[in-house]
């Protein structure tokens, strides 16, 4: 079935993006298990290199900067398909898109000219907001940026930075006016290799293990003033807008994982014989599968609609939070039910569902926890009912 046969949000070319991303996903899937077991940064580099060559790193970068000039719906379909083959790769790609989106959203022409062609071609991006003492409360970051002879000197520590060890371009948020709270934060582009930019330890994680997550230290890093994204002290808005887009992408990753978990559950239930018949003949199993599909359909609807609205340049703060909250929580339940249907074998490394069970868990934490999504939703709740 074609997307367009049951969702009004797509155009013909989106079918091509979906089918292409599916091809890519099949390729990534071949090494997904190895990448997970080894927590392999090497494989991730190779995966991102392939994605770069095919044009996925610059999928939403305008053609004038060497990108593909496509839209949020294309991003969503790509992340969805890719997460089916290798959730860690989709997660790293999502981290890259956060960096790209920050520049797209806030950067002036010169900055876009300087960095977008590279990010669209072969440079991997990272988005560095979180600090040890500033997670959900991102405005409480303490990394400092002080102006000195045409440079900003950055000092501080970031952690949990996706792609830290493999990124070429970092979007870093730091306080330029600490007394002004969220209104005193500025976004900078920092290039790998800049003296003082140090990559720290790589986290050993439960899931998305091939996607490197690192500490990033800024030890008096001199960043040229031209690398400020947008205006000084207006970086927090850029972060929030980029994260809004990112949330739609996270919802898309949730859909990809959910769909795979459901397919695996159906295949397994059709083949597993107990009590003299396939377990799929049991109504209890059928009902689980039906609930899974219902949740998946709702996730798709919310996510595709949010992407479509974003492409219409609407403010999607609310829709993105709703989509992320629902789709990622649903994915957790769907994966859990799929594991239940797999029984004991599902708990072993031999089954893909075991990896999905670990991979899915990050989705309700990163880019704003489910609780933070609810805060965002609540802030917009009255407007939503107008």
């Amino acid at each position, binding site marked *: 079935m*074609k997307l367009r046969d049951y969702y009004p949000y797509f155009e013909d070319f989106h079918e091509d993006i979906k089918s*292409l991303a599916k091809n890519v996903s099949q390729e990534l899937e071949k090494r997904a298990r190895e990448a997970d077991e080894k927590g392999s940064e090497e494989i991730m580099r190779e995966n991102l290199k392939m994605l770069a060559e095919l*044009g*996925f790193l610059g999928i939403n970068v305008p053609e004038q900067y060497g990108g593909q000039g496509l839209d949020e719906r294309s991003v969503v379909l790509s992340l969805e398909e890719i997460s089916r083959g290798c959730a860690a790769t989709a997660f790293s790609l999502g981290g890259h898109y956060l960096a790209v989106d920050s520049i797209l959203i806030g950067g002036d022409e010169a900055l876009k000219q300087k960095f977008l062609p590279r990010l669209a071609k072969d440079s991997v991006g990272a988005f560095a907001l979180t600090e040890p003492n500033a997670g959900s409360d991102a405005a409480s970051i303490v990394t400092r940026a002080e102006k000195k002879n045409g440079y900003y000197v950055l000092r501080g520590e970031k952690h949990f930075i996706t792609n830290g060890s493999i990124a070429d371009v970092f979007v870093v948020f730091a306080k330029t006016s600490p007394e002004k709270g969220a209104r005193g934060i500025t976004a900078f582009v920092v290039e790998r290799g800049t003296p003082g930019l140090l990559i720290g330890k790589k986290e050993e994680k439960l899931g998305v293990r091939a996607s490197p997550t690192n500490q990033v230290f800024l030890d008096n890093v001199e960043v040229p003033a031209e690398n400020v994204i947008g205006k000084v002290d207006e970086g927090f808005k850029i972060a929030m807008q980029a994260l809004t887009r990112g949330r739609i992408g996270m919802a898309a990753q949730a859909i990809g994982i959910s769909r795979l978990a459901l397919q695996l559950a159906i295949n397994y239930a059709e083949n597993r014989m107990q009590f003299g018949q396939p377990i799929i003949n049991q109504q209890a199993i059928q009902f689980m599968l039906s609930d899974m599909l219902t949740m998946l359909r709702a996730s798709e609807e919310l996510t595709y609609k949010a992407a479509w609205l974003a492409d219409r340049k609407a403010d999607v703060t609310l829709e993105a939070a709703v989509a992320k909250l629902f789709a990622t929580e649903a994915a957790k339940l769907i994966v859990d039910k799929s594991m239940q249907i797999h029984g004991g074998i599902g708990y072993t490394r031999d089954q893909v569902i075991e990896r999905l069970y670990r991979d899915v868990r990050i989705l309700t934490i990163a880019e704003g926890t489910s609780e933070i999504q609810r805060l965002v939703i609540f802030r917009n709740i009255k407007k939503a009912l107008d």
Partner: protein
Amino acid sequence: MQKNQVAAGCDYVNFRIVVLMKPTPDPDKVRFDAEKGTIIREGVELIINPYDLPAIELAVQVKEKLGGEVIVISMAPPQGEEALRDAIARGADRAILLTDRRFAGADTLATSYALASAIRKLGNVNLVIGGEKSIDGDTAQVPGEVAEMLGLPHVSYVSRLIDIDYSRAIVESDLESEVVTYEAPLPCVLQVTLNVAKPRIPTIKGKLQARKAIVEKWSADALADIADINRFGIKGSPTMVYRVVIPKEKERKRIILDTEQGVKAVVDLLMKEGLL
């Protein structure tokens, strides 16, 4: 069939490579009719037969070396067009879909006849590449039959193209028990295995451009001047399908050997399969 009707020999200006590509049901999406024992084909999306992906890739690599053009030909119902677009995204220059009710119901003989006729109609073809087999029909007969009908030399199970120029191809044919090296004069037909080339994935640009590409549609009438249209489709198909059965899974033999003997037998087997 006269050879020179097919190809004018070495054409340095435009080296023409034809790939035979069968649009087949997407195995992710096919459903079986368990009672009839057949694939439910209605409304199922058709994708490039996975065995034909390396054929397309090899053709594109040859084109990159020798110049010329890659023409992909399929005989399929109208929804085969999407698979042909995908072939264009993967580097083909032209795509021809033989589609007409009169082609329907073809067995391998009638399929091959239609494909051979299309190649003859094109003329000046230097190389024809087909896949090892289709994932649905699975007879592996078509490329060989096409070669015979065109009077061209034919190598099957080609697992490696060692060298090619405008006059000949040197290939390895993997016959499981042995690997044979052949030199075939061009034009010829190569039936290739999955190992012959690693298919590239199209780029986003390539994929989107292919949407705008034109897939040429040829009807039976388009071939009427060089073919006997009574040999197309069901009319031209002497094969009668008597019955289709889904094989039952075989009981395991449960052969028990003593440990030492058993381990050795397993190791030998794995070595033979190249897994150790």
